[in-house]
């Protein structure tokens, strides 16, 4: 029954089985690193799974299958708890904390009698035959592959490339993080359970920093942002280590050198390198698309429609105060924005314009003040951009925040993340789902000819337009634009405002921050002027721009100039 599939490796059969089991660990490393989560708890999680499976097998006398399941679940649970406990840590600190977790598990193992402490345990049934190992690896790979292809995969890329941007697309980054830690834990637990039932023993020295280094090396060599990266990397390491063992005892040395070289010269690993070469060979396919794009862009500005009559406040802020340390960036700002209204926010540099947008979109929690969005209190939503995005707020950023390595269509798809399938279907007017919705949005924004082009290859103005298309993809009720026309020529600026006007006709409320006072006066329904974090004027543009306080704020008069 349990035919040994891997007999074809001959004398290397055991090494091949072991490498396959460890490829599950490499997949767990990929799971976290690919999402931009710089965490390395894998050996600790593997130990949790390995010892749980050992104890279930030897002491509770559970059959192999159940012991393996137990190990997997224990790993998943440990991953979940760890993610929940370390929820606030990021970057290098998370890496150190997770490294410490692994060491703590090792130290705990030495003090729990059931683990056999330093001696470990022997006599575990060697029940992990080749079919189980191969099936586990294939199943894990299929799962990760499907995940990467799904909309969750796109959300994970967004998270990796720009976590703040991702949160503004309605992506619950913390939720994803906990989910991915749990998944990584399950993979490690499975690997641990398989490994003890492959070798027949468990000992604490196995789950070492050296093992982690070896696995990380594999993932990096393969390419840590590719689903196949862990498998390719583990395969390369397997070949190298078996070749080099034959040559001499320079394996670790060679591994180290290879890691340094790969990181320096092929940061996306072997798969990334292969893709890059392939792309270079393919030449200028994208170039022609860009040329067609330029041709399609001739003229055609949309007419400015009449602003819809403001009925019902979409956004209502009262006395918002934001402090950064000793600096009060907003000192009691109140403003309203109605349905179909284009509200302009102007003011000198440092007056608090972007801070105001950041409060509305949920980056900052105000020190005091209230607000409502569509009549709903904002109190529970401050500081939670993904929740605000789902509540109907969408924005663009002062510096464009798109994922350069993804196509225009994929970037716009990320903007749809906050909508569930039913909403997307309702929006597209059919059951065709996200793809149809994205096609419609791209058509509306005259970007359909660029759908497959990577955003990184587009011009600045074009990228701005893609960002706006992404922002309105989710059909927000309130759109925030932070200097949407910065760096554009007058023609492009007019086009952006024409597009905004079309949105207003759909009853969206728009708050726009810009420096060009004349243009804001021309297009906005109302202006709010900020200076030193306070509203110094608000109302129709003609009235506001005539006020002395506004002129002073811009020109810098203090009254002295008027004196004789």
């Amino acid at each position, binding site marked *: 029954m349990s035919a040994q599939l891997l007999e074809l490796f001959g004398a290397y059969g055991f090494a091949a089985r072991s490498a396959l089991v460890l490829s599950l660990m490499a997949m767990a490393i990929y799971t976290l*690193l690919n999402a*931009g989560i*710089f965490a390395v708890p894998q050996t600790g999680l593997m130990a949790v799974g390995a010892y749980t499976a050992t104890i279930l097998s030897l002491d509770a006398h559970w059959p192999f299958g159940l012991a393996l399941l137990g190990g997997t679940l224990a790993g998943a649970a440990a991953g979940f708890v760890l993610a929940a*406990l*370390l929820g*606030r*840590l*990021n*970057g*290098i*600190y998370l*890496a*150190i*904390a997770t*490294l*410490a*977790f692994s*060491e*703590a598990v*090792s*130290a*705990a193992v*030495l*003090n729990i009698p059931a683990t056999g*402490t330093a001696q470990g345990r022997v006599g575990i049934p060697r029940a992990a035959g080749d079919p189980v190992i191969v099936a586990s690896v294939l199943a894990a790979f299929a799962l990760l592959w499907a995940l990467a292809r799904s909309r969750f995969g796109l959300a994970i890329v967004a998270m990796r490339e720009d976590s*703040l941007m991702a949160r503004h697309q309605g992506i619950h980054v913390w939720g994803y993080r906990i989910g991915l830690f749990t998944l990584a834990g399950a993979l490690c637990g499975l690997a641990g359970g398989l490994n003890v039932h492959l070798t027949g023993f468990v000992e604490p020295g196995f789950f070492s*920093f050296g093992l982690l*280094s070896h696995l*990380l*090396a594999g993932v*990096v060599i393969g390419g840590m942002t590719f689903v196949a990266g862990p498998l390719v990397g583990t395969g390369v390491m397997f070949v190298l280590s078996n070749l080099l063992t034959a040559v001499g005892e*320079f394996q*670790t*040395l060679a*591994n*180290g*050198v*290879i*890691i*340094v070289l790969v*990181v*320096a010269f092929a*940061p996306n690993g072997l798969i990334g390198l292969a893709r890059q070469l392939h792309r270079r060979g393919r030449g200028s396919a994208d170039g022609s698309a860009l040329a067609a794009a330029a041709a399609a862009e001739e003229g055609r500005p949309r007419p400015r429609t009449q602003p819809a009559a403001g009925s019902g406040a979409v956004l209502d802020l009262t006395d918002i105060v934001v402090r950064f340390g000793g600096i009060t960036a907003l000192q009691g700002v109140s403003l309203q924005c109605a349905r179909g209204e284009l509200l302009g926010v102007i003011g000198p540099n440092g007056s608090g314009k972007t801070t105001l947008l950041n409060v509305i979109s949920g*980056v*900052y929690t105000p020190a005091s003040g209230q607000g409502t969005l569509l009549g709903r209190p904002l109190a529970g939503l401050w500081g939670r951009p993904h929740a605000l995005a789902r509540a109907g707020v969408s924005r663009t950023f002062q510096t464009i925040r798109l994922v350069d390595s993804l196509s225009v269509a994929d970037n716009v798809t990320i903007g749809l993340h906050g909508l569930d399938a039913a909403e997307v279907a309702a929006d597209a007017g059919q059951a065709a789902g996200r793809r149809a919705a994205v096609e419609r949005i791209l058509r509306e924004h005259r970007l359909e000819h660029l759908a497959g082009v990577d955003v990184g290859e587009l011009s600045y103005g074009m990228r701005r337009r893609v960002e706006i298309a992404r922002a309105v993809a989710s059909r927000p009720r309130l759109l925030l634009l932070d200097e949407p026309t910065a760096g554009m020529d007058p023609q492009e600026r007019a086009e952006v405002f024409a597009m905004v006007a079309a949105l207003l006709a759909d009853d969206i409320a728009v708050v726009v921050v810009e420096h060009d006072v004349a243009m804001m006066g021309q297009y906005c329904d109302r202006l709010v002027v900020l200076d030193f974090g306070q509203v110094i004027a608000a109302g129709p543009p003609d009235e506001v721009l005539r006020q002395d306080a506004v002129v002073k704020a811009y020109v810098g008069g203090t009254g002295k100039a008027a004196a004789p």
Partner: protein
Amino acid sequence: MDFFGQQTLNGLVLGSVYGLYGLGFGLVLANLKIFHVAHAAVFTWGAVIAWWLTDRLGLSLAAALPLVAVLAGALNVLAYFTLVRHLLRRRHTQLAAFISSLGGLMVLNELASKALGGLAVRIPREAYPVHPVRLGALQLSTLDLTIVALTALLMLLLGWLIRRTEFGREARAVAFNRETAALLGTRVDRVSIGVFFLSGALGGIAATLVAMAFNVISWDLGEHYLVIAIAAMVIGGFGSVTGVLLGGLLIGLASTYATAYIESSYRDLVVFVLLLVFLVARPAGLIRSANEIERV
């Protein structure tokens, strides 16, 4: 009480060394926001160099220590150029630098193993004769006193360097914000080289002291104390000099008490429980500095 006093003293001696080692990581972390794990191997090499100078060349420890500091510092600067520098302008610098440094750790560890022929060696007793010293009821050695005095001296020196010199001003500016410091004319590359040299030198001295205190040098010396150094750094607060020293002392005391009052196998567990408690409850450490918690 005497027993307690004796253990406290031992803990403080041990803790000073942990603090010195942790500080090497902490300095680099504060300045470049990267986790330079290869520092663990530079630490090992510090001890290996000390062994060479004393055992092979017959130098006294006093003569060897400055050389160890300079050579370990130079090795760390070499690590900066080969492992780190080219990655600083990358998008995912932290991750890339960590992995690159990990590769460097593997290479340097392996070279240390080859250099020692896979054996554990000792710094000869002739290099630094150790005499017992009685302090009331407490038993000490001249080595203990040297360790504590040297740590205190190095900390004072480091504090002066960071607070009072041009280099220190630049280093603090870079630690606060590397890009802005560069824009304002700080020679960030020179500062990085200086920081790597300093942390390597501190690591080399700490390694020599550890090798003396535990009377053994092996290829995995640095890795052996890696987690303890990390713990000192986490508990003390990432990047704060005083904090890391305090963290080291706390770890030294905790592990000594654990060995003395519970059982030696609980030593590591106590350290890690302490570490995890800090990570969960107070991730910024004892002394809050440039912490990286959920920054937008």
